């Protein structure tokens, strides 16, 4: 974090400075600091109750911090009410006004900002066209499908041309297939128009798919932040390793570190991998379920395991395997048929998909 960076005085930047938020005796966020560069899409990711929505609402002005400062575009907005901030928000429930047509919904914010009614409606038409709903303006929200309602909500927020667009779990009310399409539409719009977006979700796959940067939160504290591939490939803690794309976390010993690569010993299996900050000694290893290879035991093997359960899921097979006193979760997309339960197997690791956990 570098608060002196010139980009952080530009429109569209966000700075949280030692923000604390308590609700009565309960402290939701003890001390939060982070920055967002203009024009990026940043995801706040975490399990429910981690404070990500509270953070977003503080940015919107719907909650005010107990202490600390919030800056948007270099301007201190800590005490500003929601309607005087240059941000807009897409709500989880969309919060479309049921008594107004789609067009009136989109024009509402423009009229609130002082535009003449005619002008506002013209801009609102453009906004609807932007999300592919041209000509649907006369319909009431109840007459639109879930996906269309979602787009009206996005258009309503975007026409205000805010410095920062806030999205609070915008896809959670859509079915799985639609979700994938809408999320790429949102990402596409964001890249095309180049606005800053803050996106809250609890779905790590969604986060990986849309973000420039992900901020993972846990119990009101940032657990780790970085680009999607950094989080996936170099998790800073077992929590991150497991939360971003599932992982088995096991103990291992780093035997030597040389030229940026470490040699580790996991229960007899020796493997070389990027060292990151590791030093020789005991360490922890995150192993993705797909990074474990299982093969029928033929003779001796450095690491042996015993399959306790197997489930055939078409595209891949899921196993639970007992290895060195722990149960590992393994997915195998290469096998045509499942190995039988209770059989002994040789266990191997692929380099892509395992990582030493820092700290």
């Amino acid at each position, binding site marked *: 974090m570098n608060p002196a960076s010139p980009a952080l005085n530009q429109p569209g930047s966000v700075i949280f400075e030692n923000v604390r938020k308590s609700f009565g005796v309960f402290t939701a966020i003890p001390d939060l600091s982070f920055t967002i560069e203009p024009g990026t899409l940043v995801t706040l990711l975490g399990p429910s109750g981690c404070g990500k929505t509270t953070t977003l609402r503080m940015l919107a002005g*719907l909650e005010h911090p107990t202490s600390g400062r919030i800056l948007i575009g270099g301007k201190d907005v800590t005490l500003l009410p929601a309607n*005087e901030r240059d941000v807009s928000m897409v709500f989880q429930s969309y919060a479309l*006004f*049921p008594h107004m047509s789609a067009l009136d919904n989109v024009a509402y914010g423009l009229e609130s900002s002082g535009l003449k009614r005619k002008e506002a409606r013209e801009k609102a038409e453009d906004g609807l066209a932007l999300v592919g709903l041209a000509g649907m303006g006369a319909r009431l929200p109840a007459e639109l499908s879930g996906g269309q309602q979602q787009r009206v909500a996005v258009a*309503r927020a975007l026409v205000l041309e805010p410095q920062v667009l806030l999205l609070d779990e915008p896809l959670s009310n859509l079915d799985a297939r639609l979700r994938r399409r809408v999320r790429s539409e949102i990402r596409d719009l964001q890249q095309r128009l180049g606005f800053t977006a803050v996106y809250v979700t609890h779905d790590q796959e969604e986060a990986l798919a849309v973000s420039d940067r992900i901020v993972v939160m846990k119990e009101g504290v940032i657990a780790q932040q970085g680009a999607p591939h950094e989080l996936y490939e170099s998790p800073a803690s077992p929590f991150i390793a497991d939360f971003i794309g599932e992982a088995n976390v096991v103990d291992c010993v780093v035997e030597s570190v040389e030229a940026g690569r470490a040699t580790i010993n996991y229960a007899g299996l020796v493997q070389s991998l990027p060292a990151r900050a590791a030093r020789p000694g005991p360490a922890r290893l995150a192993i993705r379920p797909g990074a474990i290879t299982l093969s029928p035991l033929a003779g001796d093997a450095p690491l042996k395991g015993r399959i306790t359960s197997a489930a055939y899921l078409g595209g891949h097979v899921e196993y639970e395997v007992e290895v060195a006193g722990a149960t590992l979760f393994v997915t195998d997309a290469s096998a045509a048929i499942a190995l039988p339960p209770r059989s002994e197997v040789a266990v191997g690791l692929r380099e892509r998909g395992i990582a030493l956990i820092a700290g």
Partner: protein
Amino acid sequence: MTGTDRRLNIALVAGFAALLLLPWYRIDGGFYGFGWLQGYPGKPASAPAILQVFQHGRWWLAIAAALMGIGLAARFTREPSRRARLLILSGVLGLVFLTFEGLAIGFSGWSWGVLERLFGSLGDGQPSMGAGAVVTGFTFILLLSFGLAERGAMKGDAFIVGSIATLIALVTIFVFYPVLSMFAGAFQDFDGSFKPDGFFHNIADPSIWSLDCVIGAGRCGVAWRTLWLAILTASGATLLGLSFALVATRTRFPFKKGLRLLTILPIITPPFVIGLALILLFGRSGVVTQLVSDLLGIEPGRWLYGMTGIWIAQVLSFTPISFLVLIGVVEGVSPSMEEASQTLRADRWRTFRRVSLPLMAPGLANAFLIAFIESMADFGNPMVLGGSHGVLSTEIFFAVVGSQNDPARAAVLAMILLVFTMTAFIAQRLWLSGKNFATVTGKGDSGAHAALPRGLSFAVHGLVIPWGIFTLVVYVMILFGGFVRTWGLDNTLTVEHYVKAFSIGLRDNGGIAWSGVAWDSFWTTMEIALISAPLTAVVGLLTAYIIVRQKFAGRGLFEFALMMSFAIPGTVIGISYIMAFNLPPLEMTGTALILVMCFVFRNMPVGVRGGVAAMSQIDKSLDEASLTLRADSFRTVRRVVAPLLRPAITAALVYSFVRAITSISAVIFLVSAQYNMSTAYIVGLVENGEYGVAIAYSSALIVIMVTVIAAFQLLVGERRLRRENRVQSRPASPALPGQEKPV
């Protein structure tokens, strides 16, 4: 110029205009008469504060100007936290000062001897606060609110902070200040000096607390009589209400729709009308009395005039209220509970006794307490039927009006009545918070209610049918009573009562002459009802919005205080308003304003309840979406919340309009020769024995109110239909013939 500066400018301009231009003190002939413009601004009566200070020796008003000056200084302070502090300082000191000077300096100088000794005597006192003082006070409230908002209170929302501050000020002035004045009145002599003799003399009065009827011959005190009556009325009304509710929801009774119509009766019936109809039936010259005496040769008795008569009238009046409450309760018992009980081998009777009834228990207690409070507060029926056997509310009235003229006694009686109703109200609150089996959930609950056990079914029908017929007869009497010349003596049909009340003639100059005796009070009533209804709706729903949507310290207390004002009997309100608003600093008796304010704050709790219920069904994210779309909360309320609350708004409007027409208890203290209300006028007619005109006038009122309610119902009903049609058209549109059930 930012919005924060603009609103501050407006407030300051208003504030200084109030100090420099508006007449500071109350104008005797009424502000809107504009008679004061003559001789303005030189005359001391109509001079603004600035001239009061320099020409009329009221130097203390300069302090108000100085405190306003702090606000002006804040306007030109750029440093935000300092600016906010200055605003808060100006607002708080200004309000404290206005309160203090208002209470401390009366008509003829210092109100309290202590101040006279400290500061020496004042040459002249001051009259009641007027337009200038009120606008100045409001400006201080605004300055305080802006200051708090700029410090980030309520997320920096000045509209919300201002609304809360204004509501608190209004409730303080129109609910707490009168009640406190009344308490003070109990300890004061006529000249306002402290004299507790009257209090001790009255509180120990045997005519209030005597238990003679229990321990020996003689009558019990009025407090015990009132309590006893309230318990009997509440029991009767709850039992009948439950029977009606059971018949309406759990049986195949053919006239269920008609039964439900019963529930609007108490809203549209002026409270003494039932008593009046009973007199026409069972009074000395009543139809039934005459019939019985002719047939059986029994001397017509006066049994109706007393506790028995009041009890019958009250049970008739309040059964529909219990019915209304208990319909919801009975329907609220989840059918699946009863079905579960039946599948567990319980027969209908056991199901009713062990499952349905216990689930209804909190609702029954609630209905009982509501009827209890209503009975305690009832003024109309005891007034008409009580004779010499008064209850607390009528005793209060007679303590002020008429020969006794003992305000201290009235205050003591009012305190006793208040303690009773408050105890019941707090009991109700505690009871409801402790035991609430909410079986109505958001999920659809399928299943059918169990039918009533046979014996019980007979019993409730046996109660409901005769009582329903009785109610019908009473209302028929009300509607047709006005067409009979003199009840019992001369039963010829006539329209003379209506002519006397509502005749219209032509003046010599061609104008319409409203020559009927009723017109005067009728137009006043309409005017005041039409002014107070929208005010009540605005205040009530704004309060509901704040209670549901805003979190602030003391919100629970705020809500409790508002709801509590519902439990203050009308008579107590009336007597307390007289005691509070008869003298400076706020003098309003004899004006239309006091009637309007009385209605607004008496009827507001119902608007609040309706608003809270409606508001809880509107997703909070709609408000938040509006806020993030650059709308301030005033615009949010106007454009988003209010349109969605339309049914609740209509209900609040109708209710407050109708209540302003029907209520009597508080009104009878507050009417004046210039502003007389229908109900007070009708009670006057009854006291003079002019039953014919009284009943004609009452039935005309009932017809008008039915028309108003029906018109509103039609309006709202249509609107809702349209919206539902829109919603329902969506699920129907995707054609999925394959999913249709094979027949």
